[in-house]
């Protein structure tokens, strides 16, 4: 089994994500260049954080047209595991792999800092090691993380249990203070209908080593690795 980390021009969490996959959870990993039109032999693809193509137009709006996104759509449609972190989440929304959009933070400023997210669903390849209601201390760093979707989409997300993470306080309580970007329904991460594509604004790769203050985020990478191991066993 193998992980792939996509490199768009302007990605800047690509090396951080690669580091966690290879050094912290000890799994094989390759970079995937944005001009590639196949994901190669990767079994899970991560779209890392950053400012793809500068994000001068609208976050992710250019990246969705890059050759690798065609390959990722095809990969996802075959059930391949895809995770978008921060800019990766924005790109997945722009590409139509996930519903909704990420607007400017409500204070109109970039926000970087640790906060808490509550695990809302564990029946995904990304959270199967978590407990429902578990609170993870994971940082955010974005200017556009204010999740929004229309009422019909929101009720669909709720009905299908596709809201995977919500911003909360450290005790798992949903508060406005805990949701500084102003996301609709405190949404920090969602998945697609088939549950094989996840987008999340917080950065689990920045909270995967105790030296950095929190290793709560690595459970997400471990969940992914477990899923891949089981898939490998089954085939």
């Amino acid at each position: 089994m193998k992980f792939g980390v996509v490199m768009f021009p302007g990605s800047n969490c690509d090396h951080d994500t690669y580091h966690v996959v290879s050094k912290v959870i000890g799994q094989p990993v390759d970079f995937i260049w944005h001009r590639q039109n196949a994901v190669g032999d990767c079994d899970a693809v991560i779209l890392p954080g950053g400012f793809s193509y500068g994000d001068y137009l609208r976050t992710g709006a250019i990246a969705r047209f890059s050759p690798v996104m065609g390959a990722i759509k095809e990969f996802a449609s075959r059930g391949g595991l895809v995770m978008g972190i921060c800019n990766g989440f924005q790109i997945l929304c722009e590409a139509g792999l996930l519903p909704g959009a990420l607007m400017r933070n409500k204070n109109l400023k970039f926000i970087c800092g640790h906060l808490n997210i509550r695990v809302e669903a564990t029946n995904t390849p990304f959270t199967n090691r978590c407990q429902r209601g578990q609170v993870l201390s994971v940082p955010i760093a974005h200017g556009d993380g204010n999740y929004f979707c229309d009422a019909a989409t929101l009720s669909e997300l709720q009905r299908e249990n596709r809201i995977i993470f919500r911003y909360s306080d450290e005790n798992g309580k949903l508060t406005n203070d805990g949701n500084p970007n102003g996301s609709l329904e405190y949404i920090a991460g969602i998945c697609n209908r088939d549950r094989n594509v996840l987008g999340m604004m917080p950065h689990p790769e920045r909270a995967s080593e105790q030296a950095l203050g929190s290793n709560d985020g690595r459970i997400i990478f471990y969940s992914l690795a477990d899923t891949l191991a089981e898939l490998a066993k089954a085939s």
Partner: protein
Amino acid sequence: MTEPAITPELIRSHGLSDEEYNRIVELLGREPNYTELGIFSVMWSEHCSYKSSKVHLRRLPTTGDCVLQGPGENAGVVDIGGGLAAAFKIESHNHPSFIEPYQGAATGIGGILRDVFTMGARPLAAMNSLHFGPLTANENAPPEDRAAIALNRSIMAGVVKGIGDYGNAFGVPTIGGEVRFSNCYSRNPLVNAFTLGIMRKEHIFYGRASGVGNPVIYVGAKTGRDGIHGATMASEEFGEEAQSKRPTVQVGDPFLEKLLLEACLESMRAGAIVGIQDMGAAGLTSSSCEMGSRAGNGVELEIDLVPQRETGMTPYEIMLSESQERMLIVAAAGREREVVDIFKKWELDAVVIGRVTDDGHLRVKKRGQIVADIPNAALTDAAPVYHRPIKKPEPTVRIEVTQAESSIEALEATFMRIIARPTIAAKEWVYRQYDHMVRTNTVVLPGSDAAVIRIKEKRRELAMTLDSNARYCKVDPREGAKLVVAEACRNLVASGARPLALTNCLNFGSPERPEVMWQFSEVIDGMAEACAAFGTPVTGGNVSFYNETDGRGIHPTPVIGMVGIVEDPRHITTQWFKNEDRAIVLLGSTANDLGASEYAGATLGGLEGSVPKLDLDLERRVQEACLKIIQAGLVESAHDCSDGGLAVAIAECCFSSYRREAVGCEINLEGELSTAALLFAETPSRVVLSAVDGNVDRIIKIAAEHDVAAGVIGRSSDERLVIRVKRERVIERSVDEIEAAWRGVLPRMLEIPSIVAAEEK
């Protein structure tokens, strides 16, 4: 196209004096043409030539065991062990940030990042030192003061956003720095940006045009008409017309810079690069003639080959443009293709625009015709050097600062006022807008004495800090400079690091004023003495003169960027009390140092008294003892005692931090001094430690071995901060209350409620 004739007006408008012009004629053996005049004017500007500061800068110590590259290159480089080297430098972008705060600050970040990666180092950390005018005025302040406040706020908001947007997109964590406020920075803001990068020792690159016949390659963004004469603009004071200079500020593109970084590092790894330099101030001119000059070679350029973003640009404009995100590379002959291909992969221009020659001239051709031909040495080594007049100002009568309060209640109120002074208050509003975690190396988050990053795969860390204290330097430039260097060292030591070397950014008023030159000379002498005492050489930096608007200048503001090494991750120490029921130890002792302090600012509103007395030998012993105590694993926290004195330092130890609740304490201070001095004196050479009881004896023993006073001054406790002075309870409040006051200051002054927030209410 006809070029303007050289007239006395034209010469003056280029900021050149008659003597300077005569010297140009002498060096060339003829009159310069228009393009050549432009080239001389930027290279001989204060900003590029250091003509007023050079004779003084020579007095700074610049060598040491760890120094691999001292001043004179794009950045200094030090050996950090394990086969690795760190390149770091600080640079000012004060003038552009006043004219256009957002782009001015953003391009300042861009420039310093390029200075570091041009050495072959990947930038791993950024910090900045910001100085602004006050953000509030009295209710009955006159309209012009209110206008100044509004301007200060918008400058600060723009600068912070500019730094964030550039650094965040580029992907460098902004992990620390300082933000300070004083009246003198109204209409004279200071924006000093620091960057540190790491490379393998054998992969250091230099700005040298070596190898006659080697191709000169232009890479990065296309050249436009932006920033022409930016360096000259930064070499003048401002008057009413400041806003009309907006077009001399460039526009930054962090995305392009990120691509440039990756392409440069990849070309360097491929071994195809001989020399490389950023096109910063004075653009193509400075990069080509400086690279030629350092290698003792010439550079010949064909100007039409330069990628251009506008049509009809003249050689003058192309040579003087300060368009951002450009580099000049000298490649190994025959390997041009490789470099071009790597840049193409990153979707960047890379064009061979000339060759290295053996005649030592900068020669610019347009369609084969020579449009400029100047010996490199005339632009660099032969640039004017001034021994500007120095005059010690008349001594000001400064009143002694003594305790102003006659009651306990008034002293507590003063404490709460000091805590809420913007220079002391929490800077979260600022650093929350900076990505301080990208690259996942930030092991000490912003807010402690020094920022610390890890080096992945090596069991060692780098600590760094930016420090200044213009109050001290205004009252006594020489002693002030010493105090600043001492504090920078102490900040590193309190974080568990051994100080290695420093970079400085020297911000001053007009060098044409003898009093300013006196301040400058004194600061250099003080800094040199302190650097020698601590064994921390200066590896480079930047001088920014002419920080004056409408004849009002800034306090002398030398900023120190100090880098240190943490030998073992277990030595990393933060300032916060970690647990209740620990002994609190004060290393060093308090003297009657209320002069030029935050206390003096809060009670008297000015620069009164004399600066704290610094004994360099004692300071060194305190630092040695502190580091030994930390390395022996005896303490849970260590905090440098500086702005606001002991009372403020203790409060800062109590405040909450990431995943750590606030901790209270009970402190008992005794002594002959006034209560105000015991609480607020800014005596240097002091560190607040906390430790389990079992370690106290060993701490005091190590201190005694270094002939340093140390004593238990209290205990950490639950949630109240209690300070008794001579057995009287002077301060007693919940830490939460003090912390809320401290955290609320900047948001209250700077947050304009957005429409969205209004709706929610």
